[in-house]
């Protein structure tokens, strides 16, 4: 019987292939995600192992407020005096101090060379010392020596074509300075760590440019023969100040790998979520395709029943077929994933995330998960059609035009659909609004709820198809003549089929609508917040719009003629009430350029903070039960404790706050942090925003290429670029689901053309032209796609409304232009899907078609 099922499959290759496409793509996304992240992970692992190969132990700075992998903030530096103490230890053979910080390379065009979102790394080397701790390898030239030389990474050198002997600008703490490139380096065998630029100074120069004279960021140590790394660590520990820690080289390599792993697992889960959506859409496509093929095989199945096949055998044969399709498709998807991994990497590179790659890693886990999931999903999707197949009665073998019996529950479908949607929305609301849920449960409730909404709408779609098709098909009927009319009638002819086909498209489009409405809402709120807060003429931000900037550029601007105020908001991290907080520092005149409402206090609060005053946001005050006059202790990364007094409480606008949880005076901030940085600064000038003023400010920033000025509207636009980038990424990833549903439409149309062969022959025989046949198929396809879109937009908007309510930062605005664009996208999907089926239909031989059985 299994053999018969498989033979049947082989006899319907095209149909089987059409069914498989959906699974192939979904599985490819899963396997591609795993291959990509595993490959990057292993590349990082290899790099770090090489880097720490000859380091038995390493002392590094240790933030008093704990490590945070997601923050680019550097750990504090410690006093150089530690080095001498370590060198005197009996187990130490060699110990070397090092500096690690951030410095931008400046290209020939005077602009910062992009690190693709990766921090611009800077290291020190000891050109005449022991090289065993040096993590770098020279690919050409020499190590830098003296205050005018640097080495740069091979990636930048080859990308921007820099050679040994040329000069290059570097921005460390102050203004840009020019250095001579004396060497090109790579790290751990790769030319770059995820696209990060690298600048290498000799040790004394590094200490100087980073204002770290007498300080160190690391001490690398080699043990004497006979001393194990663990013993070495044990010896060093008692010497350490609170802001330093010691690890074996191996532990450090593992930790570094694990840290990148944490970041990679976020990317992986993010991509897997989209693979999940793609597979979910795939189940709709498979279920629908199988339903159609089974309907078409009614007679065949009935004949098997007359020959003694039991219901169970019929069920089994359909499931075996599904299993075979699923397994083959999964294998194909698994290997397609290898290619997709490259494509995904390109996508990330184009968005500025360039991660190192070495040999492709094809883990057993990738194979197992891809094959199991792909096969499982196919078999699950086949369940319903298979059960329906068992209801084919033997008598159908002798009945002309026998159709599959309706499901026993078909009558209640609209009611069931509405109940499903209701339950699904309730589940989502639970996930979105109930307070004490774990993140996992919350995401689970929202995800399952959203999936159930789609299932419910798909169930309801059957009822909605006839009126929708009638309306959406109207233009075709009006202007498409007989072909248009038949297209509309065909779309309405089997509502269940059209509904299932359209529903697959609905899912992808609804998610696209969801993110675009949410993004529009976020932007609207953000713009509202900027409108409320921004009182300055200009803002000073990092060139990349998000990195913190040193205070030097702001200081430079304050010397420009006509400038009345330059007020920068310092940003850093601290710890209060046992948890990590964002700490900001403001000068007294900030209220002249930034306006916030005060729940307690007035605009004068920032100017009255003094040494130990602080203000907090209303939410933070409520959460920590603070009132004006409350004492407030904040711990800094270097272990300092700020004993503060609450002076005011501000109410930030809904779209975001210009300040952190706790804000102190800039003076206090600068004293407490080793390297104070501005998140942004605001500038007022005589005459306000004018071309001349802009030119003067820009000129003053010439030697600070890491910073730029922006007017209020430019500032808004710049900050929204982040949202747009994310939005584009989401669109690209969701387009996979749309492509799968496109194949769903192709499947349905191809199968429908098979089914209507005789009818098409008849139409051609009575005078329908080939172009008319083609138009008819295109019309049906577009109507189906439009039904998908008209289900998707309301669903997406409702979902966006609910999610927007929950995340507060989003207003509810409809991006009409984009919504119209999505409808056009649906039409294009319909057009593309119809190409192959329309060609098949038009090519039918009239005579053969009439005799077709």
């Amino acid at each position: 019987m299994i053999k018969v099922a498989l033979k049947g499959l082989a006899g319907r290759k095209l149909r089987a292939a059409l069914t498989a496409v959906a699974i192939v793509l979904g599985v490819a996304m899963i396997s591609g995600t795993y291959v990509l992240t595993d490959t990057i992970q292993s590349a990082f692992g290899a790099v770090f192992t090489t880097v720490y190969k000859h380091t038995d132990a390493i002392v590094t700075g240790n933030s008093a407020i704990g490590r945070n992998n997601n923050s680019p903030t550097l750990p504090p530096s410690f006093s150089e005096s530690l080095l001498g103490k370590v060198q005197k230890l009996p187990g130490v053979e060699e110990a070397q101090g090092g500096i690690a910080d951030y410095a931008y390379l400046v290209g020939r065009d005077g602009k910062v060379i992009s690190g693709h979102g990766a921090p611009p790394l800077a290291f020190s080397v000891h050109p005449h010392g022991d090289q065993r701790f040096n993590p770098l390898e020279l690919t050409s030239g020499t190590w830098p020596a003296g205050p005018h030389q640097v080495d740069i990474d091979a990636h930048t050198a080859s990308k921007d074509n820099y050679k040994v002997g040329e000069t290059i600008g570097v921005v460390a703490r102050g203004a840009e300075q020019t250095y001579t490139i004396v060497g090109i380096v790579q790290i751990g065998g790769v030319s770059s760590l995820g696209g990060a630029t690298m600048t290498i100074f000799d040790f004394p120069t590094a200490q100087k440019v980073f204002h770290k004279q007498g300080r160190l960021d690391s001490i690398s140590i080699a043990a004497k023969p006979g001393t194990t790394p663990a013993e070495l660590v044990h010896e060093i520990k008692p010497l350490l100040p609170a802001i330093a820690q010691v690890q074996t080289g191996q532990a450090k390599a593992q930790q570094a790998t694990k840290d990148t792993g944490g970041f990679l697992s976020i990317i992986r889960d993010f991509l897997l979520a989209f693979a999940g959506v793609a597979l979910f859409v795939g189940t709709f496509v498979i279920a629908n395709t199988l339903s159609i093929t089974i309907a078409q095989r009614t007679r065949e199945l009935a004949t098997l029943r007359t020959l003694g096949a039991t219901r169970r055998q019929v069920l089994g044969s359909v499931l075996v077929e599904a299993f075979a399709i699923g397994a083959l498709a999964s294998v194909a998807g698994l290997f397609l994933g290898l290619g997709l991994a490259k494509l995904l990497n390109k996508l990330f590179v184009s968005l500025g995330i360039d991660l190192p790659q070495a040999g492709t890693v094809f883990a057993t886990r990738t194979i197992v998960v891809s094959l199991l999931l792909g096969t499982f999903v196919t078999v699950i999707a086949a369940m319903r059609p298979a059960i329906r197949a068992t209801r084919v009665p033997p008598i159908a073998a002798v009945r002309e035009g026998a159709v599959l019996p309706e499901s026993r529950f078909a009558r209640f479908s609209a009611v069931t659909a509405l109940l499903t949607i209701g339950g699904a929305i309730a589940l989502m609301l639970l996930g979105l609004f109930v307070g004490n849920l774990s993140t996992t449960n919350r995401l689970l409730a929202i995800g399952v709820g959203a999936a159930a909404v789609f299932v419910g709408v798909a169930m309801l779609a059957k009822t909605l198809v006839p009126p929708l098709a009638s309306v959406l098909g109207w233009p075709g009927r009006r202007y498409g003549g007989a072909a248009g009319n038949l297209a509309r009638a065909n779309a309405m002819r089997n509502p269940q089929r059209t509904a299932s086909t359209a529903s697959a498209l609905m899912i992808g489009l609804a998610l696209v609508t969801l993110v675009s409405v949410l993004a529009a809402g976020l932007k609207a709120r953000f713009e509202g917040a900027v409108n409320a807060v921004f009182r300055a003429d200009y803002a000073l931000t990092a060139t990349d719009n998000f990195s913190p900037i040193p205070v030097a550029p702001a200081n430079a601007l304050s010397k420009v003629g006509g400038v009345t105020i330059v007020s920068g908001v310092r940003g850093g991290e601290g710890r209060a009430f046992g948890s990590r907080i964002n700490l900001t520092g403001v000068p007294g005149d900030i209220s002249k350029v930034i306006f916030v409402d005060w729940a307690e206090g007035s605009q004068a609060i920032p100017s009255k903070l003094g040494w130990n005053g602080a203000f907090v946001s209303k939410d933070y005050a409520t959460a920590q039960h603070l009132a004006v006059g409350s004492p407030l202790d904040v711990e800094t990364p270097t272990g300092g404790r700020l004993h503060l007094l609450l002076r005011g409480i501000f109410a930030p606008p809904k779209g975001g706050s210009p300040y952190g949880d706790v804000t102190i005076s800039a003076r206090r901030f600068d004293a407490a942090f080793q390297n104070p940085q501005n998140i942004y600064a605001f500038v007022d000038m005589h005459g306000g925003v004018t071309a001349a003023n802009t030119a003067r400010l820009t000129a003053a920033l010439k030697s600070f290429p890491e910073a730029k000025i922006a007017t209020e509207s430019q500032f808004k636009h710049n900050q929204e670029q982040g949202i747009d980038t994310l939005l584009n990424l989401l669109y690209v990833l969701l387009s996979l689901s749309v492509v799968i549903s496109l194949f769903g439409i192709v499947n349905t149309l191809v199968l429908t053309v098979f089914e209507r062969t005789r009818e098409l022959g008849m139409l051609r025989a009575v005078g329908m032209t080939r172009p008319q046949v083609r138009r008819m198929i295109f019309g049906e396809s577009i109507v189906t796609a439009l039904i998908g879109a008209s289900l998707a937009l309301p669903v997406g908007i409702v979902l966006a409304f609910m999610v927007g309510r929950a995340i507060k930062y989003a207003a509810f605005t409809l991006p009409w232009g984009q919504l119209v664009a999505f409808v056009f996208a649906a039409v294009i999907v319909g057009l593309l899907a119809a190409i192959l089926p329309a060609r098949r239909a038009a090519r039918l031989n009239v005579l053969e078609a009439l005799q077709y059985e």
Partner: protein
Amino acid sequence: MALREQPDVSAPAGIAVEARDITRRYGEGQTAVDALRGVELEVTSGELVAVMGPSGSGKSTLMHILAGLDKPTSGTVSIAGTEITTLSDSKLTRLRRDHIGFVFQFFNLLPMLDAEENVVLPLTISGEKPDRAWLDSLLQQMGLGDRRRHRPSELSGGQQQRVAIARALVTRPTILFADEPTGNLDSKTGGEILDLLRASTDAYGQTTVMVTHEARAAAIADRILFLADGLIVKELRSATPADVLAVMSGLQ
């Protein structure tokens, strides 16, 4: 097949098929059609019975009910001594496997299987191995010896119907039902198929019930039943084609 029991031809008084007062109504109310209106029927083991009658007289309906493909509105049907109208789907499926063969007007072969695979399909379904010798002699008898590896699309109509008959006989059913097995064939090929049915009834001893429009059937049938308006109106034994035509013209 060697292990398979011979059909139990010693069932009560050698009766293979027995129908008692069967009626079949299609639809409800105004548009209801009474396709059968109280048919009484007994077929003895080893007999070849032909059912004739005008179009719409209920022949196909009767066949489907006798073969257990459809249920009567009232009345009972017994196959090889088992009352089938009240059987569950799974019991009925088993009974079909063991006792019934069916030949369709439109052959109903599976297009992706070759001739031999189609023939052994009922055995494949019940998970049995075909008995080589039996299969060879059956295919030989059906004149398909050199067509085993051909797909249905590569066979003529007559050959396809032979495959269908072989498929119906391969399990050595107690009864073979055939609904217009020659309806889709030219008259020469049709004649060959009729001869084949007679020959197989003699050779393998199964009971055969067949619907046909061909007067020639008179020559091969042991008994001819005439159906009109859902009732058996006449019965002929050892009739000639001329007798048959006479009855038929009377019925129309």
